[in-house]
């Protein structure tokens, strides 16, 4: 065989043989086919499913496991900094403000967050407690970030976007992993082990702990925001048959920490949280599609300065995708959710009633119609009924045009809603109470913010356009632009209520604002050489808000406009050096925030900043990865966001070392 010479192409493109046709007979197993037959089989790929990201009529971005590892991110919020169009701002050691396409706040409520298909935002405020959202970072498969309304498929709250954190299949986490990290602010570690369950199944179990020390506040004093958390969990996957797969997973988590409550005289307090969840999912492949049935249960207990919450969520969901004829791909689904809570108030925050159970029913129907091979129209709507605002519909229409193999453009029009919750209908926040001082002040005076049972859904109508291009094997880019109009956004109006001996100055929540926003996100992925990748990105955003009538407070209008940066630039570099050394750099520029607080006067601004993160990784042997990373290296400390309800800290320069052992 050594004698085979001079041959770049010796033989032979197999199709040239004109080998007997081999569209696999439907029932034959693929593995029974001969080589010749195999070579004639047309395939579709998992990659295609994931490329669906690049092949979809929406602005979507995937943060891969490799991206997370090489970014040096130590938390999910830090990893989200990589996604264009996402505003990530840390408030203190354990709280973040994260949004997509604006309206950023500690409890950004126009964003849907899921972990493995489980909604994790708080049903009380529709915001997300980011410190409670954690997994073993090495076990994340990818984070999908969808900018723009996703209400048609995902349901309420996906007004401005969806963040979907997906962990690896347990067959991909076989064996052991120990990871330990120590630094000037953060210490932690994870242990994970994965094995087999008979011939059909695989599982993993894990435990994770971490501890963060106090930052400094804006007066350079101890910010009193240290925290620690521990969690553990498992995931098991069974391939029941070639067509059915069963998934079970569960996690428990406990955390406690300190925070400073943002009252006129700030109060040092502490908070704690315990939560647990369990999920079961059955996925079945049919001849022309797939369906799944999923159910999850969450219980979440949170104790803090002004409120103790105990919230249970039960959800069951069915979804079916199938190909109907040559040109139609249909998705339909049903969802039921039951949320019940017990809220114990003190220090001024109260809910009436103190305990409530609410139900959500929803149905989805969507069709993707291939007008031609290159032109695809998707039309669908979600219809849901909730106990706060009744029926809601969230339709969309999307058009994708593949210009050629490497270029495509898309456009969409959609409507989505952010439904009211307890935090907007049933809440009362007492701000102050001044006793009567007869005869000068005959009545006691109280000030409070109160919800209103008439509070309706917030609504967006969004128009989007995007373009994706693969310029060469090494260079691709993505552009998305949008124009959104919002109606019935949250605000408040002043109301004075007189009763014998008491004057109440109330701010009553109302759907009092309209807004429009527009902007663009651009990013590129450039493989400069085999060992060097560069990813630049740019996000531009403008929000204009108006009050709908003259008696509406302007505080939230100003905050809507000012709480997100107008410009964000980023560039990430991943460089692989000889001897298994990696050197990775991320630079993020974030514009100033003009106003991040509702009630405080004068407006509170956050100056612009540039953040530099570096990581140096080395893998001396296969089973060991060592790294040192620095975050926020350019600046000793600076604030990233200032929230209404808790005192903000300055986010410091931090350095850590990390070791990961696998076997």
């Amino acid at each position, binding site marked *: 065989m050594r004698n085979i010479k001079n*041959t770049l192409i010796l*033989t032979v493109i197999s199709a040239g043989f004109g080998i007997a046709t081999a569209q696999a007979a439907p029932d034959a197993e693929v*593995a029974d086919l001969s080589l010749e037959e195999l070579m004639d089989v047309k*395939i579709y790929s998992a990659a*295609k499913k994931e490329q*669906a990201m690049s092949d979809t009529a929406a602005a979507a971005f995937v943060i891969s496991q490799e991206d997370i590892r090489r970014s040096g991110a130590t938390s999910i919020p830090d990893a989200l900094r990589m996604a264009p169009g996402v505003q990530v701002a840390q408030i203190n050691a354990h709280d973040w403000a994260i949004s997509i396409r604006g309206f950023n706040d500690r409890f950004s409520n126009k964003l849907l967050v899921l972990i493995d298909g489980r909604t994790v935002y708080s049903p009380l405020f529709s915001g997300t407690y980011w410190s409670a959202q954690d997994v073993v970072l090495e076990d994340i498969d990818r984070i999908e970030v969808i900018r723009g309304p996703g209400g048609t498929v995902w349901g309420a709250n996906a007004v401005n976007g969806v963040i979907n954190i997906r962990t690896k299949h347990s067959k991909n986490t076989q064996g052991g992993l120990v990871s330990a990290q120590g630094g000037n602010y953060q210490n932690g570690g994870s242990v994970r082990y994965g094995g087999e369950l008979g011939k*059909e199944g695989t599982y993993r179990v894990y435990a994770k702990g971490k501890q963060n020390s106090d930052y400094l506040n804006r007066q350079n004093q101890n910010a009193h925001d240290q925290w620690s958390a521990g969690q553990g969990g498992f995931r098991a996957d069974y391939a029941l048959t070639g067509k059915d797969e069963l998934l079970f997973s569960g996690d428990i988590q406990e955390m406690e920490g300190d925070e400073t409550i943002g009252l006129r005289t700030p109060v040092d307090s502490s908070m704690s949280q315990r939560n647990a969840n369990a999920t079961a999912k059955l996925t079945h492949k049919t001849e*022309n599609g797939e369906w799944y049935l999923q159910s999850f249960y969450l219980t979440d207990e949170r104790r803090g300065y002004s409120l103790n919450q105990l919230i249970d969520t039960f959800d069951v969901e069915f979804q079916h995708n199938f190909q109907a004829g040559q040109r139609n*791909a249909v998705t339909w689904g049903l969802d039921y959710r039951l949320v019940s809570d017990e809220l114990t108030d003190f220090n001024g925050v109260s809910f009436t009633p103190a305990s409530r159970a609410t139900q959500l029913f929803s149905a989805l129907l969507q069709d993707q119609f291939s007008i031609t091979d290159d032109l695809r129209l998707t039309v669908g709507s979600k219809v849901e009924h909730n106990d706060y605002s009744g029926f809601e519909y969230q339709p969309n229409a999307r058009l994708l045009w593949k210009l050629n193999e490497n270029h495509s453009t898309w456009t969409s029009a959609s409507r989505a809603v952010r439904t009211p919750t307890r935090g907007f209908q049933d809440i009362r926040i007492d701000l102050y109470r001044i006793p009567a001082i007869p005869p000068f002040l005959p009545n006691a005076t109280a000030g409070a913010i109160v919800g209103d049972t008439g509070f309706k859904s917030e609504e967006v109508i969004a128009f989007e356009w995007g373009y994706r291009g693969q310029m060469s094997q090494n260079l691709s880019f993505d552009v998305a632009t949008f124009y959104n109009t919002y109606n019935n956004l949250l605000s408040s109006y002043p109301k004075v209520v007189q009763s014998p001996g008491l004057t109440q100055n109330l701010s009553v929540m109302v759907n009092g604002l309209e807004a429009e926003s527009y902007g663009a996100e651009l990013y590129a992925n450039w493989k400069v050489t085999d060992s060097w990748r560069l990813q630049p990105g740019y996000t531009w955003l403008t929000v204009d808000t108006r009050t709908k009538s003259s008696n509406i407070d302007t505080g939230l209008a100003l905050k809507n406009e000012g709480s997100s940066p107008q410009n964000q630039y980023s560039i990430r570099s991943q460089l692989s050096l000889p001897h298994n050394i990696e050197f990775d750099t991320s630079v993020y520029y974030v514009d100033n925030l003009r106003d991040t607080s509702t009630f405080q006067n004068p407006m509170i601004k956050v100056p612009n900043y540039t953040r530099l993160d570096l990581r140096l990784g080395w893998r001396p042997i296969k089973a060991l990865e060592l790294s040192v990373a620095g975050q926020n290296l350019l600046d000793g400390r600076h604030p990233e966001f200032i929230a209404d309800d808790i005192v903000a800290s300055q986010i410091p320069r931090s350095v850590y070392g990390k070791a990961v052992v*696998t076997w």
Partner: protein
Amino acid sequence: MLSAVIAGSASADDKEIHEDEVKAAFVYNFAKFVEWPADKISESINLCILGESPLGFSALKAIDGRTAQEKQLVIKLLNKSDELKDCHIVFIAASERNKVAQLLKSAHQQHALTVSDMDRFAEMGGAIGLVKTDEKIRFAINLLAAQEAGLVISSRLLSLTLVVYDENNRPTP
């Protein structure tokens, strides 16, 4: 879920078969047409999978335990530190691309047939590279690599291959 979600965009043509299943079936077929050195032969043919999720679980299941050359094909999912000693075939995931030279060296020392679907695998010194063209899977063979591993590849396999590389074409590492 996402694909379904945003637009149900991964529309599977009825006649198409999942890429992973086809690749796995190819690997199974390779096991039929390779001769290992006498001292390597054991009671089963062990297919070792290296790296992150190169082939789907159900695709692997479809070939696990099948018979090739009157021996059972046994699939082993390797961890990063596992030795290749018992492997007759090593499937290397694209995720292992930047250490492929090292992996190939140790696999060939162990007389294992190296297979991968990563780009230009045969060109880089792997024995058989799976190549995707026109929505079909073909394969390329690097004879020198097979020889280095002490393997004899049947002429039937060679006759179907897309490209054969010999030493003249072997890129220097």
